């Protein structure tokens, strides 16, 4: 009975989370332009989507900017994390505090402040400013993911590598990098995600030639909304679903079998509680 109630509750919450997405997907097959009347099934919007240059171009912009910004942010952030790790306590805390700023600051304030900066520096708003802005809000995520890995790392490993004849750069490459790699990867993935999804900061820092997908979607929602947007969101949803399933399956595979067994055992214990 209790289990049933739990299931029901979870079902309700997930229904809440997924209803709008199902509406979008259903509408992408709706022959009518109206969002609320169903007049028949069609693939037209998908066909039109691939001929809509504005959408495709902004999608490309989004991907290029996300890729460049996250690579830059990862490089900058990883180096920074190593530097910060070796700092004295006071400076370290100060720098980490400032690093938190873009995360806790409201997006709109970050966006507006960067716009003021770019205008003051007379940098033309466009690709460059978008990339600079995206790196700025992505770096903290890289740093905050790499730092804990550095803390977990056994310092003796690095010393041992030096003792065994490694040059410091070599030791760094062979010992430190592999140790903190998971942190770097998480930081990189988070950066890509945030960069692709960002609207508010891009809104204030984009120029005439550099509309990203969220900005295009925004300007569409302000006019007659074209059902092609629904088709696009359906495609994105499926793509993300596939990526997530692949990631999850591969992660499950990677778990050593005994760990899986242990987890299952712990689970059984929990079931009784």
């Amino acid at each position, binding site marked *: 009975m209790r289990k049933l109630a739990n299931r029901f*509750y*979870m079902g309700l919450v997930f229904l*809440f*989370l997924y209803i*709008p*997405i199902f*509406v*979008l997907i259903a509408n992408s097959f709706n022959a009518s332009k109206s*969002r*609320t009347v169903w007049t028949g099934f069609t693939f037209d919007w998908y066909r039109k989507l691939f001929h809509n240059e504005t959408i495709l171009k902004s999608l490309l912009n989004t991907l290029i900017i996300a890729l460049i910004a996250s690579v830059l942010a990862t490089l*900058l952030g990883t*180096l*920074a994390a*190593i*530097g*910060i*790790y*070796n700092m004295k306590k006071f400076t370290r805390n100060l*720098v*980490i*505090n*400032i*690093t*938190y*700023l*873009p995360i*806790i*600051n*409201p*997006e*709109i*304030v*970050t966006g*507006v*402040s960067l716009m*003021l900066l770019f205008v003051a520096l007379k940098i033309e708003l466009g690709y460059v400013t978008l990339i600079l*802005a995206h*790196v*700025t809000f992505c*770096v903290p995520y890289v740093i905050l993911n790499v730092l804990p890995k550095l803390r977990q790392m056994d310092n003796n490993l690095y010393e041992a590598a030096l003792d065994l004849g490694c040059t410091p750069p070599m030791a760094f490459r062979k010992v430190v990098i592999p140790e903190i790699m998971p942190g770097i990867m998480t930081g990189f993935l988070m950066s890509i995600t945030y960069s692709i*999804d960002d*609207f*508010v900061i891009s*809104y*204030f820092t984009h120029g005439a030639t550099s509309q990203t997908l969220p900005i295009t979607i*925004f300007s569409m*929602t302000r006019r007659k909304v074209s059902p092609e*947007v629904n088709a696009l*969101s359906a495609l*994105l949803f499926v793509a993300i679903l596939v990526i*997530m399933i692949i990631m*999850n399956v591969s*992660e*499950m595979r990677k778990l050593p079998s005994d760990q899986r067994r242990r987890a*299952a055992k*712990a*689970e059984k214990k*929990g079931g*009784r*509680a």
Partner: protein
Amino acid sequence: MTKLRSRLAAGPYMAWMIIFMIVPLLLIAVFAFTTTAPFDRDGNRLEEEEAALIMEEELAEWEENEVPLEERESAVVEKTVFTVQNILEVNKYMPTMLNSIWMALVATVICLVIAYPLAFMISRMHFVSQKMMLMLVMLPMWMNFLLRTYAWMTLLERNGLINRFFGLFGMGPFEMINTQGAVILGMIYNYLPFMILPLYSVMTKIDNTTIEAAQDLGASRLSVMLRVVVPLSVPGITSGITAVFIPSVSTGIISRMLGGGTNMLIGDLIDLQFLGNAYNPNLGSAISLVLMVFILLCMSITNAFDEDKEGGMLL
């Protein structure tokens, strides 16, 4: 030696941090405390009316002599001066701010109420199901939030799907879109995962044996919850609250799409001054500054409850 050298690795980031994180915020402060005022060519401050009068006379003279625009040189020049007027002006928009804070608070509390049981249930599930459930929670977040909010418009409209559904039973139509409730719903919908995830990550660390021990010692289900689970999940609660409250209080788009611009929030107010229909970057900066300070203060309050946070959290 190596320590010193590796400390230098942070160099590029430090430069970046100063240019792109600190200087922009200083710029906001500068804009918030300045305004443009008319001066004459000798550098004397003029009264607004005085300047307007001079400019009017100039214009008449130019028109009369048909001076081309390029050669018109006004005796009045605009200069940037220090002022606290913008900050005082922010007071006028206090109801909007309080409204934002109130709505964000309501959304945060509802998120907590919805997310808490859900996170606990997920954390007690089978290991593989846990992974799957987490994926289900995160999946909507990956969709662009404008699209998701837009989908809610379709649902909430007067001729929208929900009203059509109720219409089948002869009920409604209900006024849902362009109300405060719709904006709060948008906030809850968009930021609910931000509440579920930190709660889950704390709860999953609570060992089942701890709960069993409490039960063996005769605690009821409720007191297990209140005296064991809740105290252990405080860090998750505080980070969940901040993760929902901050974006909710500063959002502008949700209120524009679901509130129809009749329920203005701080975010809309700022946007209005920079890229909207009432251009005044000085006032916009002042509002941004107030919002920023308010949020930093809120952060310091929630952090105070979070005892074992790793060093270096703000304030």
